[in-house]
């Protein structure tokens, strides 16, 4: 199965800033891997449910009980930038729609 990939779009979705030559390398590699991966289509799977969880557990709840939170200074000590108890990032170009 020939695989046509809009690699620039995929890189944008994945938030990876790649230049044109990198994009071309990944496009070629992905096509090759996907061609191999497309072998899954040779297996007849009508009426076969997908498996997302191998062990088949259900629910696995926790009770609504408050546990201690982390120390803020310890958390913010790992942040690339912080100020007044907040994490800081450059302004967003787009809003969350």
């Amino acid at each position, binding site marked *: 199965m020939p695989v046509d*990939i809009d*690699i620039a779009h*995929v*890189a*944008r*979705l*994945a*938030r*990876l*800033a*790649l230049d044109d030559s990198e994009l071309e390398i*990944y496009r070629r*590699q*992905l096509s*090759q*891997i*996907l061609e*191999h*991966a*497309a*072998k*899954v*289509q*040779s*297996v007849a*799977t009508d009426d*076969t*449910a*997908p*498996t*997302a*969880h*191998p*062990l088949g*557990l259900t629910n*696995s709840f*926790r009770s609504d009980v408050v546990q201690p939170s*982390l*120390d803020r200074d*310890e*958390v913010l000590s*790992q*942040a*690339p*930038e912080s100020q007044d108890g907040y*994490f800081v*990032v*450059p*302004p*967003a*170009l*787009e809003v969350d729609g």
Partner: protein
Amino acid sequence: MSLADLTIVEAGRRLEAGEITSVDLTEAVLERATMTEAQLHCYLTIDRDGALESAAASDERRSQGRALGPLDGIPVALKDNMCTRGVETTAASQILAGWVPPYDAHVVERLREAGAVLVGKTNLDEFAMGSSTENSAYGPTRNPWDTDRVPGGSSGGSAAAVAAGSALGSLGSDTGGSIRQPAALCGVVGVKPTYGRVSRYGLIAFASSLDQIGPLARSVDDARLLLETIWGHDPRDATSYPGEYPSLAAALDRGVGGMRIGVVEEFGGEGYEKAVEAAVSATIERLAGAGAEIVEVSIPTAQVALSAYYLIAPAEASANLARFDGVRYGNRVPGDTTEEMMARTRAAGFGPEVKRRILLGTYALSAGYYDAFYGKAQQVRTRLIQEFRAAYETADVLISPTSPTVAFELGARVDDPLSMYLSDVCTLPVNLTGDPAISVPVGTDDAGLPIGLQVMAPALGEEQMFCVAAEVERLAAFDARPPLGDAS
């Protein structure tokens, strides 16, 4: 022989008998590391002071008759994708360079509670993505048996450290063979338990529905000890198995008389080295001689398991690795907007294999391709589970080579992702099914490179798996040592 070359069981016996101290043992291991690290690079971080402190504390406990159990005072290593409070954890990625977790992974807590001495954090393929440990942002680990060759991966550092004597045992993580394949290539024992047996809390996720933590050790019994220490239900992992956890020790001495051992037809032939197939055949014959019934089984879907795996694992990984964005921790590459900062941070912070898999997974999940790729792969997964289940109607365990080849040379497969992926062809099916499997060294090829045999069992069937693994170990009587390790 250096204390660093003892098995955990033997070291434990000597500690208990008062013949040695944990400080002796830890110093021997650290000394071995000092001697070998420049060449092997098993570790990303060695916590010398922390290890000696734990060892002294262990000796103090023991002197007061308060030893914590068979792992008290035993130096072990952790793959660097398990969070350790206060000790840098990088998953061998540039994006996490310098990150110090504010919490311990569940398995780290369990090891600390058992009194184990944590020597350090071992090297891996970045985010556990790879089969050679060449994808580490901090340079590759080399195979102690031949330093021109890879140790396998992704838990290459953990496997090489145990083989070289810079730890008595270690923990790795296995998503498609990442414990078993390096164990085979380094001549040690490696276990992937049933999915859900060992809590993933604090394991930096690669593919959540496939990842499982397990031990690497110099003997089946050592691996059992480590496994029994780290497994058990953990309420912080919703996929943690809440049922019974049997004691495994008795199973090791049971023998294989009357057991049905299935040989999987699909794991052999083209691409498999002759020495590997010969070693496996010899073991099968010995098992028959020991009273096992050998049966042939077929798992046709195993042949497309690799394809399914390379859709499911990258898809999950693409989401799991989205959190590395330069906002809350790790490294940041500046940008004028959030979007630009994130995209630059990720492009600079991830290595090529990680980027490749993120792109692959993102593509496989994206609108218009989901059904053909990811959705289909999940159905194939169901088929595979059904076929394994059917195979276990006629066999109690299944065996196969762990890896089609012995350790390959550094650089041999880095430019050909697909050939690298083929290293996992025997190991990854049970990650898809969730079943347990173990790799046991059974011999060497003409060049003296180790060969591993894989024993697979149905989900939660660790008892029968260890029973057969122990027999394989006895029959193979593998006692070769890597040249580097023989320093005493």
